[in-house]
């Protein structure tokens, strides 16, 4: 018994000497959108890739070491950080009547929803992002998409959203809602996205 205990103490001491200095941990969480995601963890010359939900890496003076974490473990250690996470941006889309700076009737209803979302948030800020279809070059579409965003921005300001909390930008034809070949006219791509954050 005593010999066993001595062995255990020795093993513990040796273990303590050999234990690398802990330097933290990283855990990949499930992606809300279900898309494949990954984090690379590089320490010294060593790299671990986390590419499955709850895949983790312990950081230490010996380099990163993979481990499997879980929902409860993450909640226990990171609960406060996760609870402080801001609401994700709420996204709305407004469509234009072709060739005019005027919204479709359906889009006018969406404007009420946007104001509801703004009212729900303690310190809202709004991003207004214009898009075009694939007719024309970036040199034409970038300013056009920005103009569409500016129209919406001025409308939101006119309805009472503080001007310094709305940023307008244009994405041109880079992010079509409906992918098309270049040069194709597509009304569903002539739109303005609004993110309430």
């Amino acid at each position: 018994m005593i010999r066993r205990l001595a062995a255990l103490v020795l093993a513990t001491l040796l273990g303590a000497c050999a234990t690398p200095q802990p330097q933290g941990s990283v855990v990949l969480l499930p992606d809300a959108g279900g898309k494949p995601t990954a984090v690379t963890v590089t320490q010294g010359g060593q790299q671990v890739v986390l590419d499955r939900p709850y895949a983790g890496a312990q950081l230490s003076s010996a380099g990163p070491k993979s481990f499997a974490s879980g929902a409860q473990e993450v909640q226990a250690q990171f609960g406060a950080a996760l609870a402080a996470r801001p609401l994700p941006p709420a996204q709305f889309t407004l469509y234009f009547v072709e060739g005019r700076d005027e919204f479709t009737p359906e889009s006018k209803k969406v404007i009420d929803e946007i104001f509801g979302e703004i009212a729900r948030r303690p310190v809202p800020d709004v991003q207004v992002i214009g898009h075009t279809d694939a007719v024309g070059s970036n040199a034409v579409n970038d300013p056009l998409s920005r103009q569409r965003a500016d129209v919406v921005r001025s409308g939101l300001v006119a309805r009472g959203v503080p001007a310094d909390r709305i940023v307008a930008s244009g994405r041109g034809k880079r992010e079509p809602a409906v992918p098309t070949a270049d040069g194709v006219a597509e009304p569903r791509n002539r739109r303005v996205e609004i993110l309430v954050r």
Partner: protein
Amino acid sequence: MKTPIRVLPLALALVLAGTSAGAAEDVGQIKVAKGQVSVDRGGRALPAQVGMGLAAADVVKTGADGSVGITMRDNSLLSAGPNSVLSLDRFEFDPTTHQGRFDSGLQRGTLAVVSGRIAQQSPQAMTVRTPSAVLGVRGTDFVVSVP
């Protein structure tokens, strides 16, 4: 129903005059703050509050009872738990192309991250550093701790 969202010449003129410059310069905004939270900026410790805009090189600190949630301009979400030190080392973002660069650091504490448009556009363009490691973010949701 009247349609207030029309091109009002005056409103458009104001927009073109750049009235949104203030918000556009912030790299992020504090959306959630509980307990003790402060921001180190240019050698001064500013008390943090919900709605405060953040700049590149700001260092956000939480006390023993503190936590903070930040939305960045590219829609990245960073939130830190108690006793944390989080630095926004570098942030550049082109809203038209989504090209940019976002480097942050966790010196101590706990951090939850949802990456945004910079990482979505360029898988090498977002990193989170700890004192001993570099995390490359390829569009994802993860947590980090540093003792």
